[in-house]
């Protein structure tokens, strides 16, 4: 079987098929032979039996009538069958009656008939056949056949055919198996050839040819796929190796591989730069050679440690002799990779650090120098600090002990310092207020709704911050909270002064106050003090405070009254419109109805009534819009004035009456304003210009913008005409309500337009004014702040 295993698969398959088919054939042939032999024997018995029956039948009469010669003749007919070697007839008593051949050897015939039937003995078939006539037995026939000869003949024929058939079958089986095995062996051999090509040449680009879609086809596919993967991996490996090789060869670090006996196995090219040797000069030599004698013990120790612990990395710094003879400082890391089958060495990567080492020494020296100087300087600073601390303590002491009431704030209005007097006057402690916000510590008295202390102080401080100048405040009522939480009425006279730093920036604010409570109380109680100067001064200050309080109250009343007035005028003008519509309506009705009957004079009266009513209606409308102006809120947005003015001039259609107006419109900058209100301003101004230049045969209107300078806080716009102009003596009245310089007969108008303009511009934080001369035209100006006003 071992030999069978080593046979090539083609031979194996052929052998397999051959053995199977020949084996089956031999078994079949054997079975058939056995069957044939049995059949042959049965046929022989049958033939002999038939012969016996015929002979017996022919012998009946001879036996029945005792005719021996006749029986002898009958038996002798058997000579036609040469294989019948003996025959005999026995009478019913068992006595031999006749025999064949006439003189046989006595031993060949049985002395008496045996049982009927035939028996095989070696090369003999013998048997007894009853002789029967009409159901009666007349005797017995004995026959003996020599089977040896027949069998021999039969065997020769049968075996000859069998051998011939088998030989043919084997040849056929061989041819068939040879052809069949190719179906299986061809793809396998193709695969094997490919595999051999791959393993011999390491060529992973070859591919096995697929010859079918059976399991071998699958195997081929899988094999090819595997090759593809191997090819990719091989490529990746090569790339990797090339990369790492490139890394090593081009690394500025030198890399060495030594075995456990310190024999150098490999050195990267960088060693030439580090030690002056070409790698070939050192490979094979001991890695410890050339080491500085002082570093040898260290190196030996490192090697011992490395060998003791596989995989460990140890950093090491040592010296080696350069080929040129000088010592080179080396720093590196040695790793024991003896256990890694891919490396099997101690790997050390190292670099020349001689220069670094020298500069390190230098740096160390410089450092030491620096440290020494720092210590000296620190000592100086410390003594200066001590001086400072001393003087600061003096000043602090001075400050807190000042007799005045001083509070120091930072620009965020947090309390930085306070004099003892201040603390005492405000019933606070230093710890309780330092670092806290000013208004957190000193809020308004919640029980005094009229308290203005906080707002006034805040405004004053803001002025200081903005102007960087001291700000003295009027006497203030500013109640302070006692430690028990109850507020105490206090009056103060504060002054806030900025403290500027070297860069003129605000550093602190000094808040100095004087407690004038007693004085104010005394004044309130109408107690006339003595006539001393101090007393008079105090009295005057108190009076100023009280009168300022009164002015404030009057202002508030005035404002309220103004508001009431506006509301009143609005409702009045609104209510006036209804009766006015009646007057106008009924006048026109009357005109229509009585046009035919009335005389010319009456009709003119009616027309006058109607015109007056309409004029009044316009007046009321203007008044309403004027009063509304003060109530509506501003909707500020960027307004494109070029488009606005161009639109007004175009839509106004001011040249319809055949007049030609020379327009001169300069580009206008965009402004931040309420678009609707601004439009009203421009409409009024342009209409005014058109109107008052109506009598000039060549009207000319100029619209423009003039800025005082580039960084001005406001922009000034103007409309100039060459109309009737006005007397500058009345310039102040121009923008008042119902103020007109020309009668309605001369120019139409309600006298509200310019008042409206002034109001709108004022609400935008701007100004309005005019310039003109009688008969020489007029210029109307308005300004708008560059920064939009807070709504």
């Amino acid at each position: 079987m071992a030999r069978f295993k080593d046979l090539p698969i083609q031979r194996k398959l052929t052998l397999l098929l051959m053995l199977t088919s020949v084996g089956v054939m031999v078994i079949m042939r054997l079975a058939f032979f056995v069957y044939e032999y049995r059949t042959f024997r049965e046929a022989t018995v049958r033939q002999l039996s038939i012969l016996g029956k015929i002979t017996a039948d022919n012998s009946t009469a001879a036996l029945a009538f005792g005719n021996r010669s006749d029986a002898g003749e009958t038996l002798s007919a058997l000579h036609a069958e040469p294989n019948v070697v003996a025959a005999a007839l026995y009478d019913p008593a068992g006595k031999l009656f006749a025999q064949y051949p006439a003189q046989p050897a006595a031993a060949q015939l049985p002395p008496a008939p045996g049982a009927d039937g035939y028996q095989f003995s070696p090369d003999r078939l013998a048997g007894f056949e009853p002789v029967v006539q009409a159901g009666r037995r007349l005797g017995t026939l004995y026959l003996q056949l020599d089977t040896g000869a027949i069998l021999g003949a039969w065997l020769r024929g049968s075996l000859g055919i069998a051998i011939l058939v088998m030989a043919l079958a084997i040849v056929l089986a061989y041819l068939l198996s040879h052809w069949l095995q190719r179906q299986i062996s061809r793809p396998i051999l193709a695969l094997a050839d490919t595999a051999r090509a791959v393993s011999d040449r390491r060529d992973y680009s070859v591919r096995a040819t697929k010859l079918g879609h059976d399991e071998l086809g699958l195997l081929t596919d899988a094999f090819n796929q595997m090759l593809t993967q191997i090819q990719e991996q091989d490529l990746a490996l090569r790339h990797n190796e090339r990369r790492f090789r490139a890394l090593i060869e081009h690394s500025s670090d030198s890399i060495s591989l030594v075995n456990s006996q310190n024999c150098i196995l490999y050195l990267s090219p960088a060693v030439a730069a580090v030690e002056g040797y070409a790698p070939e000069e050192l490979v094979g030599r001991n890695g410890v050679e050339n080491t500085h004698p002082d570093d040898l013990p260290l190196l030996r120790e490192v090697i011992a440690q490395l060998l003791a612990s596989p995989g460990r990395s140890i950093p090491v710094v040592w010296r080696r002799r350069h080929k040129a003879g000088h010592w080179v400082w080396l720093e590196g890391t040695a790793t024991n990779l003896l256990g890694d089958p891919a490396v099997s060495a101690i790997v050390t990567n190292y670099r020349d650090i001689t220069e670094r080492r020298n500069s390190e020494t230098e740096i160390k020296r410089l450092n030491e120098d620096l440290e020494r100087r720092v210590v000296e300087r620190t000592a100086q600073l410390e003594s200066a600090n001590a001086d400072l601390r001393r003087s600061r303590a003096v000043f602090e002491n001075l400050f807190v002990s000042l007799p005045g009431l001083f509070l120091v704030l930072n620009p965020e209005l947090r309390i930085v310092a306070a004099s003892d007097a201040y603390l005492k006057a405000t019933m606070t402690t230093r710890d309780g207020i330092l670092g806290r916000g000013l208004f957190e510590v000193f809020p308004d008295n919640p029980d005094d709704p009229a308290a203005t202390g906080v707002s006034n102080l805040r405004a004053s401080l803001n002025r200081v911050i903005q102007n960087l100048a001291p700000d003295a405040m009027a006497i203030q009522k500013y109640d302070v909270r006692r430690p028990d939480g109850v507020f105490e009425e206090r009056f103060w006279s504060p002054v806030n002064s900025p403290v500027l730093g070297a860069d003129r920036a605000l550093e602190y604010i000094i808040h100095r106050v004087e407690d004038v409570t007693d004085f104010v109380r005394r004044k309130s109680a109408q107690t006339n003090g003595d006539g001393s100067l101090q007393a008079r001064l105090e009295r005057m200050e108190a009076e100023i405070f009280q009168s300022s309080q009164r002015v404030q109250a009057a202002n508030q009343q005035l404002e309220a009254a103004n508001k009431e007035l506006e509301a009143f005028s609005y409702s009045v003008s609104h209510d006036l419109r209804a009766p006015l519509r009646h007057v106008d309506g009924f006048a026109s009705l009357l005109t229509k109805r009585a046009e035919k009957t009335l005389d010319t004079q009456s009709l003119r009266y009616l027309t006058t009534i109607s015109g007056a009513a309409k004029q009044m209606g316009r007046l009321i409308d203007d008044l309403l819009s004027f009063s509304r102006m003060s109530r509506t809120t501003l909707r500020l947005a960027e307004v494109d004035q070029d488009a606005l003015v161009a639109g007004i001039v175009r839509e106004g259609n001011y040249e319809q009456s055949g007049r030609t107006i020379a327009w001169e419109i300069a580009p206008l900058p965009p402004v931040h304003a309420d678009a609707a209100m601004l439009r009203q301003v421009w409409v009024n101004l342009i209409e005014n210009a058109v109107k008052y230049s109506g009598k000039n045969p060549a009207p000319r209107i100029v619209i423009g913008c003039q800025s005082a300078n580039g960084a001005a806080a406001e922009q000034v716009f103007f409309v100039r005409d060459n109309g009737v102009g006005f007397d500058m003596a009345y310039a102040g009245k121009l923008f008042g309500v119902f103020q007109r310089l020309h009668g309605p007969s001369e120019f139409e108008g309600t006298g509200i337009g310019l008042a409206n303009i002034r109001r709108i511009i004022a609400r935008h934080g701007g100004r309005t004014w005019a310039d003109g001369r009688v008969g020489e035209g007029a210029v109307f100006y308005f300004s708008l702040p560059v920064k939009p006003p807070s709504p």
Partner: protein
Amino acid sequence: MAVLSATAFVRGRAARWIAAAGIAWSALLLVSPAIAQPEATREYQIKAVFLFNFAQFVDWPPAAFSDPQAPLIIGVLGDDPFGSFLDQTVRGEKVNARPLVVRRYRAVAEVDTCHILFICGSEAGRLENILASLKGRSVLTVGDMDGFAQRGGMIRFATENNRIRLRVNLAAAKAAQLTLSSKLLRPADIVEPGKD
């Protein structure tokens, strides 16, 4: 199996036959001297067996029997030379399912239904009459007188060299519508009428 049982059957029957024939043969050989009956000589003992054997080699026309089981009758005309031997020979025997019966006639007129008729030597003078009266009837006539076959008898026992031979008149048998087996004719001598 069928072959096997058939063989067994044949063997069983053969054994019985050998036994029966053996007894008959011994009786034939041994009994005659002991009984010492004058009419039952050895010669006639053989002839009695032959008579019986004729029943096996001759076919009668169907009309010769009243029914298929009707007995085959062997008649003896004249002085009976067989004694009781003939009766002993046929007793219990059957040929083609027919039992055998022996009848003895004094005169030919007594012969009514008979299939084999042995005409004894005592009737030699009346042979022609006898044969004439049997004409047209299917009766196998057997005798041992000289010239029996030439004279119109069908089978004659002739003794030659101490052996009994058969002489057959085929024409007579044919005329009586009897069919003699060719096997019977092989050991026999064919005789033409008028010769001998």
